[in-house]
């Protein structure tokens, strides 16, 4: 178990480091995901240490994974919009909203 605890803290630190030093938006998002995974790992180790095996942290991590994918999706959508704004030639599909022609 100790090795997984150490892994969790190393992953936490890596995520922290990436979050604060990376400049690229996507890489910061990946760092944040690594950070969250480290916390999940700690929860699962706690569940494993308990006797009998504790299902509650497992359920918490399952909930957390779904939440993480939702927030990642929202963040990715934001990153894409921000990147499009900075790119020299925006894609034509993004500049016309549906229904804008009847405005």
């Amino acid at each position, binding site marked *: 178990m100790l090795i997984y605890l150490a892994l969790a803290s190393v992953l936490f630190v890596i995520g922290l*480091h990436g979050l604060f030093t990376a400049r690229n938006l*996507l890489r910061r998002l*990946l*760092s944040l995901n690594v950070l969250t995974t480290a916390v999940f790992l700690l929860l699962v180790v706690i569940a*494993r240490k308990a006797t009998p095996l504790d*299902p509650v942290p497992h359920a918490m991590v399952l909930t957390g994974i779904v939440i*993480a994918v939702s927030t990642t999706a929202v963040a990715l959508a934001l990153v894409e919009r921000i990147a*499009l704004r900075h790119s020299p030639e925006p*894609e034509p599909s993004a500049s016309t*909203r549906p229904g804008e022609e009847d405005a």
Partner: protein
Amino acid sequence: MGLVGQVFDALLAIALVWLAWQATRAADLFRAVVSFIVFGLLMAVAWVRLEAPDIALAEAAIGAGATGALLLSALDRLAPRRGRSWARVWRADARTWVLWVPAVMALAGALTAAAWQLPAPGLGAVATGALEQSGVDHAVTAVLLNFRALDTLLEIGVLVLAAVAVWSMGPAPAASAPVMPSPTLPMLGRTLFPVFVLVAAYLLWRGSHAPGGAFPAGAVLGAGGILMLLAGAQPWIRSAEHGPWRAILSAGFAVMLFAAIVGALAGGAFFEYPAAIASHAILVLEVTAGMSIALLLFAVYLRGEPHPAADTDRQRC
């Protein structure tokens, strides 16, 4: 597994640390994303080692699968840039090695030590004791859909909310034909999609008495939808305001909310299913939640509001 097990864990930890480092520091973005996908894959193996097969299923399906597809697809829109070369990253960081590494080691060590001291009493016994009244045999499913059903309701809510938020940011990028015109892709999609559906149904059925259940099932089904989309199928979710898709997308959340309120009206608390019908109620919730998760993952993957169907009017509020 004894010593071999220790070696296995150590190798796994080394690989995970290396991949995490790559995912956050790699010179080019594609390498970072691939590292992250492999990171998710090996995390699933770690969950298996930690006797958490439910999480392994979810991580394999959602963490590595759906997130990986999302990230890879985002790459083609984020104009790929050449990063700093690896040597330069190494050299630029050399200064910080002296300063940061000791601090970081201390922090990691302290965290590990603190976590190692945890007595971890756990709620295993309490949960097992309550399992009989929960209506399912598998403890994790019981926690998710009965003991802590409110969390699950709000979690599906977050997914619905994510779909609404992503759609609100603008239209989906034009459904471009696959950049590599290949006859294999549509065929692959047609062949694999039924398998995805079959596996999803199987996982859903397993959920009541073994690891599995709505979440991995929904994720697998959603991944199947994404596969069809990638293989060149037109997205079948249309943004018609009065069409069925928006209602179907929010159905899982609505049904759970409805179940919670019915429980309250039946004289109990919010989400209190009468013990007699608990197992049926949970089955219904699982099926709708699974379907809903599948469609929502697909909706989020569209990365914007899908284009309105050609035959509906564009009336707006």
